[in-house]
C-alpha cells in the first residue's frame, strides 16, 4: 500500500513529461499557429448582433464580395488601449472612408453599448463574441487586434495591439495602401 502511494508522484511526473515532450514538437508554436491566417481564407464564423445596439451582427459572409478590402477590428469595452485606438479607427472611417467591421470580444453587451454610445460607433457591423470562440478562430492573442480582409475573403494583413501612436498609425496606413484601400500618397 505504502509502496503504491509512493509511486504516484513518479507516475504523475511521467504523464506530465509526456505532454511536455509532445509540446516541444518543433512544428508547434503556441503563440504563432493561428496567426498564419495571412493570405489564408478568413475563418468561418457567425456572430449575432450586440443586444441593445442597432447594428447588425457579423459573419464571414459579410466579408465576401466587397469591392475594396475591409478592416475587421477586435475590441472590447474593458480593453483600455481599445479606447485610444477607437479615435484612430473613427478617423479612418470618417476621413478616409475605410469600411470597418467589429468583433466585440468577451464583452458584456451593456458595457459595449455604453462604450459605443459614449465614444461613437465607427463600425458598420458588430458581431458579439461573448464566448471568445470567434476570437480563437481568428487566432487573436489579445485585444485589440486588427485585420485587413480582401474581397475574396482572404486575410491580407494582421496588426496585433492598438494602432495608437505615430509609428503604429503609419504602419497600418501603409498596409491599407498596399491592400488598395487607401490611395497611394503622392
Amino acid at each position, binding site marked *: 500500500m*505504502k*509502496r503504491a502511494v*509512493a*509511486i504516484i*508522484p*513518479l507516475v504523475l*511526473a*511521467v504523464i*506530465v*513529461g509526456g*505532454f*511536455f*515532450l*509532445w*509540446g*516541444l*514538437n*518543433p512544428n508547434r*508554436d*503556441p*503563440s504563432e*499557429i*493561428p496567426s498564419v491566417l495571412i493570405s489564408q481564407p478568413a475563418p468561418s464564423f457567425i456572430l449575432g448582433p450586440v443586444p441593445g445596439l442597432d447594428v447588425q451582427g457579423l459573419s464571414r459572409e459579410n466579408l465576401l464580395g466587397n469591392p475594396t478590402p475591409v478592416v475587421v477590428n477586435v475590441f472590447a469595452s474593458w480593453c*483600455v488601449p481599445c*479606447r*485610444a*485606438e477607437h*479615435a*484612430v479607427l473613427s*478617423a479612418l472611417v470618417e476621413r478616409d472612408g475605410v469600411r470597418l467591421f467589429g468583433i466585440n470580444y468577451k464583452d458584456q453587451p451593456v458595457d459595449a453599448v455604453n462604450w459605443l454610445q459614449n465614444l461613437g460607433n465607427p463600425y458598420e457591423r458588430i458581431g458579439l463574441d461573448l464566448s471568445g470562440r470567434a476570437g*480563437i478562430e481568428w487566432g487573436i*492573442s489579445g485585444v485589440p487586434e486588427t485585420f485587413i480582409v480582401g474581397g475574396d475573403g482572404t486575410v491580407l494583413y494582421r496588426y496585433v495591439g492598438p494602432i*495608437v*501612436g*505615430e509609428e503604429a*498609425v503609419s504602419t497600418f496606413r501603409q498596409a491599407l495602401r498596399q491592400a488598395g484601400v487607401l490611395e497611394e500618397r503622392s
Partner: protein
Amino acid sequence: MTPELGHFVLALALALALVQSTIPLFGAARGNLLWMRSARSTAFGQVVFVGLAFAALMRAFVVSDFTVLNVANNSHSLKPMIFKVAATWGSHEGSLLLWVFILTIFGAAVAAFGSNLPETLRARTLAMQAWISVGFLSFLLFTSNPFERVFPPPLDGADLNPLLQDIGLAMHPPLLYFGYVGFSIVFSFAAAALIEGRIDTAWARWVRPWTLAAWISLTAGIALGSWWAYYELGWGGWWFWDPVENVSFMPWLLGTALLHSAIVTEKRDAFKSWTILLAILTFSLSLLGTFVVRSGLLTSVHAFAVDPERGLYILGLLAISIGGSLALYAWRAPMMEGGGLFKPISREAGLLLNNLILATATGTVLFGTLYPLFLEAVSGDKISVGPPFFNGAFVPMMLPLVFVMGLGPFLSWKRADLVGVLQRVRFVVVLAVLATLAIWYFAKGGPVLAYLSILIALWLFFASLREWALRVRLFEVPLQESIRRARNLPRAAHGMTLAHAGVAVLMIGMIGSSVWKSEEIAFVEPGTSVNIAGFDVTFEGVQRVRGPNYIADQGTLRVERGGSFVTALKPERRSYPVAQSTTTESAIRSTLAGDLYASITEPSLDKAEESGAWTLRILYEPFVGLLWLGAAMLVIGGSLSLSDRRFRVGAPQSSKARSTKPVAAE
C-alpha cells in the same frame, strides 16, 4: 582573449563537476574518507571556475566588447553602466550562466558550512549537487555558449529591451535564481537522505536554514518582479497570472509548505517522507520554471528566444533529475515512516492542514498553467487560462489557510487544549470583527468576499500580535519584564510573528488595490482636469527630456485636493531609438492609504497631436503600498528566523536556550 578563457574555465568546471558527481558517491558507499572529502575541494573549484567565467562575461559587457555575439545582441555603448552589468544576465545564455554560478555558490556553501554534517551525508549531498551542475554546465556549453564570437563585429550593440533597463528588474533575476537554485540544496539533501535510507530530526535541522534562505530570496524576487510590473508596465496591475509568473509562484507555495513540514520533522520526527517529497517537488517546480521560460512551451510575455533543441535538452535534464529522484523516492520512501503521533487538535494537525492547502493550491496553479497544453494535446483546441480561473479557484482556498495560520501558533504539540486557546483568542475575534465593521462603514459597498477576506486578514494580524504578546506577557507583567522576555525569545519566534503579520498586511494590500481601485482614462489637453478619488488632476502639458539612451516626453500633472496643492506628477513616455521601442514611466504618489498612479500615452490622432492632446490614464489604488510592506515583512521575518542561533553554524545549543522555549519556533 578573455571570452575564450571564460569558455575554457567553464569546461574545467564541467570536468570538476563530473568528478564530484561520482567519486564521493563511491567513497560514501565504501567508507573511503578521502574520496568523500574530495567533494569539498571540487565544490570550491567549481565555484571559482564558474565565477571566473561569469566575471569574463561581465567584463565583456562592461567594456562593450561587441565581438561577443551575446554582448552585441543585448548591449549598447551608450547604455548606463549599471544596465551594462545587468545585461550580463539579460539574455538566455547569460542568465543560465548566472543560474549555474548560483548553483555552485550553494554547493560551495554546503562544503564550507557543512562541517557538522555526517561525512557520508555531506559527500552524497555534494554529489547530487554536482549532478545538477553537470546537467546545466553541459547544457550551457553544448547549446548556449555565452562566449560565442561574431565576425565581423558590429559597430554598436542592438541594446537590451528597454523594459528591462530598470533597476527593479535588473535585481529581479538574481534574487529569483537564488530562490530557485537554493532549493537545489534541499533537493540534494533529500536525494542524499533517500540514498542513505535514513532521515531523522537532525536532517531536518540541517535542511531548514537552506530552505529558509531560498524561500527568502524567492519571496524578494517575486515581490520585486511584481513591483516592477506595477510601476513599469503603466497600467497599475501587480499580478497577471501569466505562466511565467505562475512557475515562480509554485516553488514559493510549495517551498512555504516545505518550510513548515520540516518543522514537524525536526520537532516531532513525523511527516518524514512527506517532507522529502516536498523537497524534491519544490526544486522540480523550479526546474519546471526554467524549462517553461526557455522552451516556448506555453505562451507568455516573458519568454526568452525560443529554441526547440534547447527545450528538448532541458526536458531531458528534467526527466533525469525529477524522474530519477521520484523513482528513488518510490523505492526508498516506504522504508522510512513512523514518528510522533498527534491528536486532531494540535500543532501538527494545524501544520498538516497548512501543507494540504498549500499543496492543493500549488496543484491548482500547476493545472491552470498547463491546462492549455493538456487541452491542445488531447483535443487540439487552443485556449488560455486567465485570472478568472485563478482568482476563482485560488483565493477561496487561501482563506481557510490564513484562518488556520492565525490559530496554529497557539496550539501546542501533540495535543492542544482547544477551549484554552479559544479563550485566549476571543478578544482577537472581537477586535477583527469590529475593525471589519468599521471598514465596511467607511468604505460602503463592495463584494462580500472582500469583507470576509479583510476579516480573516485582520484576524491573522491581531492573532499574530496576540500570540507574541502572550509570549512576552505584555501588560501582564511590568513593561521591563516584557522587554526582557522579548530579548530572550528566540529570533525565530519574532521572525514568525513578523512574517505571519506580513501575510495579513499583504492581503489587505491585495484586497484594497483590487476591489476599491478607481480608474480614469481621458484624452487630455493642457488645462484639462480629471477628478479621481477626491483628487483634482490637471494636465499642464508635455516637455521633451533627453536621457542617456532615450528621449522622453514628460507630462506634468498638478494634483490638488480640496483646492490645495498636493503634488506634481511627471509621467514619461520614453522612446529608445536603438532598440526601437518605447516604454511607459508611470508617476506615482505613494502614501500608506493608497497610490495615485498616472501614465500617459502619445496622441493617437494627427489632429490630437496638433492640439497637444494625450491619453492620460490615472488610477487610485487604495492600500497598494501594503503589498510591498507585507512582502518586506515576509523577507525580514524570514531573515530574522534565519539568523536564529540554532541555525548559526557551529553555535552550540545551550541547554538553557533549549529549556526556555517550550514552544517551537518557526
